[in-house]
C-alpha cells in the first residue's frame, strides 16, 4: 500500500541521484587521486575543508596562503547507515597529540561522502606556533590523526611571491580562507583579507595545474536598497535553482545571496542578489542543503541564532530584497529556529537525512562571538529537521 507512489518517488530520487553521479564522473573522467603525488605535505595551518570526488580532501591553509588536495585513501562505504557520536572529542584529540584540551581549536568539519567518516581541521595550540592537524573520526567513533608525512597530495599557492628582499619584515598580510566548495571541476575558495576590505572569490581548476592559482572573482551584491557592496563571503554552498547552478553565499553581514555559477568566470565582476536576511549581530557558520517531505531546506548554523531551518524551495521566485525590513531577520526566505540542538559550533552533512554537529558550551563572550568553548566538545549525529 505504502509502496505505490512513495516507492516510485524513491525510485525517481534514485534515478536523479545517479544522474548527478554520472554528471560528476563526466567532469572528471579519470580518478582525481591520479593527479596527486606522494610525499610529505607541509601545512602552516589547517582551516576550511571541502571534499571533492574520489575521497579527495581539500584543506585551506590560511597562514601558508595555499590550498592542498589530499588523497584520504578512504573510499569504503559504511555497512548500513552511519551514526557517529563521540563525547569529549576535544579531550581525545588533545590526548592523541599531547596537549592540554584547552589548546585544541577545531577549525572546520566535513564528512567524506564516500565513507561517511568525519574529518576535522584542528590547531594544536592557539598561537603562531600552533601545529595543524587533520583528525579523522570513523563511523565507529575511533579518533585518529591523518598523517601528512607520506600522502598523495597537490598544493596550490594563493599568494603573490614573497618579497624579494629577505631582510624585509615578515609580510603581515594573510588571507583567511573562510569556506571552500568543489563545484563541477573547480574549487571555489572564499577568502577574507586582514588588510583590505575587498576580497575575491577564487575559482581554481581541479586537478591543480602547476602553480595556477585560478581566477579571482569580485562579487558585488545588492545590500538593501540602492547601495551595492563588495564584501567577503563567509560561508557558501552550491545550489540548483530552477535547473540552473548557483552558489548561495552568506556574507559577513548576514544576508543570503544567490550567485549564478555561469557568471563565475575568469576576471569577472559578478553581481549577486540578496534573497534573505538572517539578521544582525550574528555570524553564519555552516550551511547544509537537504530535502525533506518533498521540500527543499537549508540548515544554517549560526553563532547567536543557533540552528535555523530555512525554506529553500523555488528560490528563483524570491525578489531581490530592496528595502530594509523593520523587523530584523524576517526578510526573504522564511525560516524557523531549531531548538532541539543547542551550542552548535560545526555542522556538516552526513547523508540525505542526517547531519553531524560538533557542540560545546559557549564561552563567556557575547552571543554572536562567544569565544573559545567552555567544557567538552561533543560530536553528535542529528536527523535533519
Amino acid at each position, binding site marked *: 500500500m505504502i509502496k505505490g507512489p512513495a516507492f516510485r518517488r524513491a525510485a525517481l530520487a534514485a534515478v536523479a541521484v545517479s544522474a548527478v553521479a554520472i554528471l560528476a564522473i563526466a567532469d572528471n573522467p579519470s580518478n582525481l587521486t591520479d593527479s596527486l603525488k606522494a610525499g610529505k605535505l607541509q601545512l602552516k595551518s589547517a582551516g576550511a575543508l571541502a571534499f571533492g570526488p574520489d575521497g579527495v580532501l581539500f584543506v585551506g591553509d590560511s597562514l601558508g596562503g595555499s590550498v592542498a588536495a589530499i588523497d584520504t585513501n578512504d573510499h569504503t562505504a559504511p555497512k548500513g547507515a552511519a551514526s557517529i557520536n563521540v563525547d569529549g572529542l576535544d579531550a*581525545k584529540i588533545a590526548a592523541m597529540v599531547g596537549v592540554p584540551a584547552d589548546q585544541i581549536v577545531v577549525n572546520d568539519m566535513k564528512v567524506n561522502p564516500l565513507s561517511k567518516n568525519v574529518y576535522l581541521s584542528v590547531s594544536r595550540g592557539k598561537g603562531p606556533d600552533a601545529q595543524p592537524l587533520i583528525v579523522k573520526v570513523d563511523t565507529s567513533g575511533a579518533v585518529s590523526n591523518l598523517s601528512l608525512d607520506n600522502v598523495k597530495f597537490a598544493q596550490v599557492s594563493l599568494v603573490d611571491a614573497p618579497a624579494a628582499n629577505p631582510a624585509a619584515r615578515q609580510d603581515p598580510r594573510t588571507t583567511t580562507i573562510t569556506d571552500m566548495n568543489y563545484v563541477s571541476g573547480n574549487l571555489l575558495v572564499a577568502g577574507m583579507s586582514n588588510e583590505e576590505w575587498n576580497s575575491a572569490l577564487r575559482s581554481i581548476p581541479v586537478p591543480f595545474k602547476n602553480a595556477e592559482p585560478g581566477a579571482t572573482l569580485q562579487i558585488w551584491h545588492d545590500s538593501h536598497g540602492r547601495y551595492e557592496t563588495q564584501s567577503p563571503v563567509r560561508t557558501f554552498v552550491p545550489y540548483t535553482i530552477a535547473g540552473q547552478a548557483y552558489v548561495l553565499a552568506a556574507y*559577513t553581514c548576514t544576508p543570503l545571496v544567490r550567485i549564478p555559477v555561469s557568471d563565475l568566470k575568469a576576471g569577472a565582476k559578478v553581481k549577486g542578489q540578496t534573497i534573505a536576511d538572517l539578521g544582525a549581530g550574528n555570524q553564519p557558520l555552516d550551511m547544509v542543503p537537504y530535502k525533506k517531505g518533498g521540500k527543499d531546506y537549508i540548515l544554517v548554523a549560526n*553563532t547567536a541564532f543557533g540552528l535555523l531551518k530555512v525554506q529553500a524551495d523555488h528560490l528563483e521566485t524570491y525578489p531581490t530584497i530592496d528595502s530594509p525590513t523593520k523587523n530584523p531577520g524576517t526578510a526573504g526566505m522564511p525560516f524557523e529556529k531549531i531548538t532541539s540542538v543547542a551550542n552548535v559550533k560545526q555542522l556538516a552533512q552526513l547523508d540525505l537525512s542526517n547531519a553531524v554537529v560538533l557542540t560545546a558550551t559557549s564561552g563567556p563572550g557575547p552571543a554572536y562571538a562567544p569565544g573559545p568553548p567552555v567544557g567538552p566538545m561533543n560530536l553528535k549525529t542529528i536527523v535533519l529537521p
Partner: protein
Amino acid sequence: MLLAGVAAAAQSVAHSPVIELQNGAFRVNGWAAPRSEPRGGWGALFLVYAGAGKVPPLVGAYAVESGALVFHPRYPITAGVHYHAVFRMPSGATIANDFDGPARATNPLARVEQVYPTAAVLPSNLLRLYIVFSSPMSQGEAASHIHVEDDKGKVLPDELLPGQELWDPLFRRLTMTFDPGRIKRGLTSNQTIGPAITEGRHYRLVIDRDWPDARGVPMVQGFARSFVGGPADRTPPDTAQWRVTAPASGTTKALVVDFPGPMNYSLLLRMIQVTRGQAKVAGRISLERHEAEWLFTPDTPWQTGDYQLAIDTGIEDLAGNHIGTAFDIDIFEKVSKTIERKSLAIPFTIR
C-alpha cells in the same frame, strides 16, 4: 638457542624493565627488544597516554635503539601535560610509569603596543581597527576581551563584526572590523539599530588584561582609549588633494605626503611606493599626525631628477573607501571585463 632464551628471561627477571623519559622520548630500559616488530606492532606492547579516561594513545613513532624499545612522540613533551606510559611484557605482566611535562608558564609578557587608527575623533562609519601586541597572542579570544563602551561605561554589544579573527602570521596584529551591516546605508541593522558609532558621542575602547598570550598567560596590563564619533566619511580618497613635499637633493630627509585625513594604517605601509624610472627606491616608511601623514626616508641620498609615488588604488581611508570607489556604492552598473589592479602615479622632482 634455548639456553640463550632462558638467559634472556632470567636477565629480565633480575632487572625488571623500567620506562624512562630521556631526551623527549619514552624508553623501555632493561628489556632486550627483538630486532623486528612483533605481530600487532610495537603498539601492542608499549603505549603512552597523554590524557585521562578513554582516550587514544599519543601519536608517535617506535624505534629500537641500542637494543631498547623507544617511543618518539610526534609532538614534543608539552607543558601542562601528564603522560602515562604502559609496557606489556611478553610474559603478560605490565609495567607503567608516569611523567609530567614542564609547568605551564605564568609570567606575563604581552601588552597592547598600539591600536590603529590613533586619532581621537573617528568617523561614524569607521570600518577597521588594528590592534598591535608586543607578543604573540592566543586566537579565538577577541570577542570576549575587546569591548566598546559608551560614555557611562556601559558595554555596547554588536559593535564589532562577529567571528573570524584576522591575525598576521605572527599573531601580533589583530584586525577587527566594525559590523558592516551597521555601516552600509540601506542595510537592516543600519536602519534599525543605527550606526556603530554616532557622531558627537564619546566612546572607550577597552582591551582586557586577561586575554591570554600564545602561552596562555594573561597580559601585563589591559588597554583603554577614548574616542569621539565624527561625521561619516563617504568620499573616496582623491590623490589630487594629497600634498607632496619633496626634500632637497643630496639629503636623506624624508619625503612627506599629507592627506586631508587619516588613512588605513596597514595599507599606508604597503600601497605607496617611491619609484625612479622603473626602479623602486629603498627606504623606510613612517606615519605621523595620526596616520594623516606618510613619510619616506630613503636608504641613500635623494638625487636631482624626477621621481614618482606609485599608489595602489586599493588604498583605503578609515571608512573603507578606496580611490575611485566609496565603501558602499550607489548602484553598480559599470562592469569591466577584467579585475583591475590599478595604480596611480604622482610625479615629484628632487632639486
